[in-house]
C-alpha cells in the first residue's frame, strides 16, 4: 500500500514539473506583447518599451522561468500584468465561484447518472432502458452551452425564478449565491451525467453476467440487494475512472459556461488573460488547474484501493 502510494506521488510530482515547463514554453512562444495590448494603437514604440521594462518583460527567458517556478514552490504566483495585483488574489476571488460550480455539477451528475445506470442495466432491453438510453444519447450529443441557453430562457426569462447570469458574491448570502450557480451547474452536469450513466450501465451489465451474481441470486438474495451490494460495488472502478476524468472536463467546461452566465470564475479569468496576454496569470492558473486534475486523479487512484480490497493487499 505504501509503495503504491509513493509511486503515485512521484508520478504526480514529475507530471507537475513537466507541465510547468510545457506551459511556460508554449505561452512564451505564442505571439503578442502585453505592453502593446495595454497601450493600444496610438502609443509609440518607445513608450511600449518603457512599459515592457516596468513590467519586467525584458529579462531573459530562462531567468523568468526560474523566477516564476521558484515563486510557485513558495506559493508566490507573481503579479498580473494587466491588473497589477498578485495573481493569488485574483485566483482566490475566482476559485470561490468555480470550485463550488464544478463540485455541484459533479455531485449532480453522479446523483443523476448512478440511478439511471442502475435502472437501465436492471431493465436491459426493455422500454424503460431504451427511453433512458435515448435520453442519454441526446445528452451526450448536445453541447452544454445550448443547454445553458435553453435553461436561461425557461427559468430566468420566462419563469423568472433565478437570475439570467452574474454572481452576487458569497457576501450577498449563501442562498442568492447558490441560486446563481444553479442553472450553470445543471447545464454543466447534464452532458456529464449522460456519459456517466452510459458507462455505469455497461459496467453493471458486464458485472450482472458474472457467475457470482448468479450464485448470489441462487442463494436467494433479493434482486435489489444483489444489484446494490454486489453489482454496483464491482462496477465502481470504471465509473470512478470516468468521474476523475470528468473533473478535468468540468473545469474546462466552466470556461464556456462561465461566459454564457457571465460568472466571475477561473475559466473567465484564464480566457480574459489569454486575450490580454496576461501570461503570468495564464501560466499560474493553468498550473493550478493541472495540480487540481493531478490531485483528483491521485484521489481516484487511491479510491480504487478503497473499493477493491485486492489492490490494497497487493505488494
Amino acid at each position, binding site marked *: 500500500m505504501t509503495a503504491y502510494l509513493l509511486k503515485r506521488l512521484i508520478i504526480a510530482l514529475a507530471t507537475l514539473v513537466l507541465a510547468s515547463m510545457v506551459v511556460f514554453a508554449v505561452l512564451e512562444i*505564442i*505571439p*503578442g*506583447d*502585453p505592453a*502593446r*495590448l*495595454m*497601450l*493600444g*494603437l*496610438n*502609443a*509609440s*514604440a518607445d*513608450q511600449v518599451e*518603457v*512599459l515592457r521594462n*516596468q513590467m519586467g518583460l525584458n529579462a531573459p527567458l530562462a531567468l523568468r522561468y526560474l523566477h516564476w517556478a521558484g515563486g510557485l514552490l513558495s506559493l508566490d504566483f507573481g503579479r498580473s500584468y*494587466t*491588473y*497589477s*495585483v498578485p495573481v493569488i488574489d*485574483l485566483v482566490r*476571488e*475566482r476559485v470561490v465561484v468555480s470550485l463550488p460550480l464544478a463540485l455541484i455539477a459533479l455531485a449532480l451528475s453522479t446523483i443523476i447518472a448512478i440511478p439511471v445506470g442502475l435502472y437501465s442495466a436492471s431493465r436491459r432491453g426493455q422500454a424503460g432502458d431504451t427511453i433512458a438510453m435515448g435520453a442519454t444519447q441526446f445528452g451526450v450529443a448536445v453541447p452544454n452551452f445550448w443547454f445553458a*441557453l435553453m435553461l*436561461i*430562457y425557461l427559468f*430566468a*426569462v420566462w419563469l*423568472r425564478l433565478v*437570475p*439570467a*447570469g*452574474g*454572481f452576487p*458574491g458569497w457576501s450577498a448570502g449563501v442562498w442568492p449565491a447558490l441560486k446563481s450557480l444553479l442553472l450553470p451547474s445543471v447545464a454543466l452536469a447534464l452532458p456529464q451525467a449522460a456519459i456517466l450513466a452510459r458507462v455505469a450501465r455497461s459496467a453493471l451489465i458486464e458485472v450482472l453476467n458474472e457467475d457470482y451474481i448468479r450464485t448470489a441470486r441462487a442463494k436467494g438474495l433479493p434482486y435489489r440487494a444483489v444489484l446494490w451490494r454486489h453489482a454496483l460495488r464491482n462496477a465502481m472502478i470504471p465509473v470512478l475512472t470516468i468521474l476523475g476524468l470528468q473533473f478535468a472536463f468540468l473545469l474546462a467546461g466552466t470556461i464556456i459556461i462561465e*461566459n*454564457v*452566465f*457571465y*460568472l*466571475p*470564475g477561473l475559466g*473567465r*479569468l484564464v480566457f*480574459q488573460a489569454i*486575450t*490580454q*496576454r496576461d501570461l503570468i496569470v495564464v501560466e499560474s492558473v493553468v498550473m493550478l488547474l493541472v495540480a487540481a486534475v493531478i490531485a483528483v486523479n491521485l484521489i481516484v487512484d487511491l479510491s480504487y484501493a478503497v473499493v477493491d480490497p485486492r489492490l490494497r493487499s497487493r505488494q
Partner: protein
Amino acid sequence: MKLWKTILAAAALALAASTSSFAARTDLVIGIPLEPPHLDPTAGAAAAIDEVLYANVFEGLTRIGPNGEVLPDLAESWAISDDGKVYIFKLHTGVKFHDGTDFNADDVKFSLDRARADNSVNAQKGLFAAIDKVEVVDPATVKVTLKNPQGSFLYNMGWGDAVMVAPESADTNKEKPVGTGPFKFQSWAKGSSITLVKSDNYWGTPVALDKAEFRIVPDAAAAVPALLSGDIQAFPFFDPDSVAQVKDDPRFKVVIGSTEGETILSINNKKPPFDKLQVRQAISYALDRKAIIDGASAGLGVPIGSHMSPANKDYVDLTGHYPHDVAKAKELLKEAGLENGFKATLKLPPPSYARLGGEIIASELRDVGIDLEIIPVEWAQWLDQVFTKKDYDLTIVSHTEPNDIDIYSRKDYYFNYDNPAFDKIIADLNLASDEAKRKELLGQAQKILADDAVVGFLYELPKVGVWDAKLQGLWENAPIQANDLTKVKWSD
C-alpha cells in the same frame, strides 16, 4: 361632509405624489462587454476604462459632449493668446477630489506634467506633445504654453487620457480611482461588476442616480436574456446582430447612433502589388459597401469614402469616388499588368465586423481575380504581426479614435503610406485654429486619401444602444467611447 371629501381627496393626492416621487428609481445596472484591465484612464488604451469612468468619476479641463463638441469642465473658461500658443485656464473653485483633498492649479500642473513625462505610460501621449510648459499662476489659474499653435488642443484636453488626477492618489487609481466627478468609485468585484455611487460633495449639478453598477457581460448571447429578465437595464454598446431579438419589444428602446469608428480594409501600401495605385483602386471598385454592411453589421452602419465620420462637421461625402464596378476593377488590374489576378492574404482580428466582413470582401475580390486566403488572428497576434511588424497584405479593422485622420501621416504606421503632400496638410492642420481653415484642410486631406485609395474605406461602425424605455439621458452617439451618466434618470 364636503370638507371630509376634500380632505380625503387631498390625502389621496398627497399619497399619489409621494409614491410617484418614491417610484422613480435611482439605481441602474449597465452591461458592458469587456472588463477594464484597471481603472486609471491615464494609463491604458482599453476603451472599457473610459466606458466606466469618463465624466462619471474623472473630469478634465474640458470635456467632449454627446455630439463630439468641446465643453468646459473643470476649467470654467479660457483665453487664448493671439499667436495661439498660450492658453490661460480659469478653474472652478471649491472642487474636491473624492478623498477630500482640494483640486486646484497644482493638480492641473501635476496631471499634465505626469502625462507627458519621459516615463509616462499614457496611451495617448501624443495629445500632450505640443505642450512646452505648464505654470501655476494662482490656485484657480493655469497657464499652458505650447511649442506651436495647435488647433485641436482644447479637444485633446477633453479626452479620457487627459483627465485630472491628484498627486496623493495618482499611483493607486488603477485599483481605487479618485477623481472629481459626480460619481465616486465604490467597489470592483473582479470579473463581475464595478459599482459607482453618487458623490455628496460634487461641485457641479448633482446627478439623479444614487448608484450605477457596470456589469461585465462578455457574451452577446447572454446580453439578450439579461435584458429580458430585467437583471440589466441598459446595454449602451449592443451587438448589432442581436437587435432583431429586442427591437419589437415595447419595454426597450433601440437607439442607433454614430461612432468615430472608421471600419476599413487596411492595405500594406509598400508591399507589391499593393504599391501600385491601380491595384488599390481596383480593390476600391471591387468593394460593394452595401453588401458588406448588410452582412457584417446587420445592415446598420453608414458607408464612408474616406477616413472621417459622417457625423463630423468637417465630413466630405466621397462615397461616390469608387462606385461598385467589377468591370472597371478588372480593367485597372489589367493596366497594372495583373490581368490574371493574384493571390494575397487577409488577416482578420476577432470582432464580428472583421470576421463576417472579411468573408464577403474575399468573395467580392475573387470576382475581380484577387484570390484571398483568410487568416483569423487574435487581437494580440494582430497587434504583433500586423500593427507592429507590418507583416500583412490586407486586414480589416475599425479605427475608433476620434478625429484620427493624421494617422496616415505617421511615419512607420502600419499602412506604410507615404505622401509628402498629405503630410504637409496635416502639419498645416496642426497649426491652424481657424475653423474655416481647418475645414478646408480636412476636406483636402479626405480627398487625397480617397484619390490614393490608401485603404478600402468601408463604413462607420454604428453605436447600437438598447435600454429600458423608461431610462433617459444616455448618449445616442459615441463621439468618444464613454457612458456619461451625468444626465441619466428614470422617468416614472
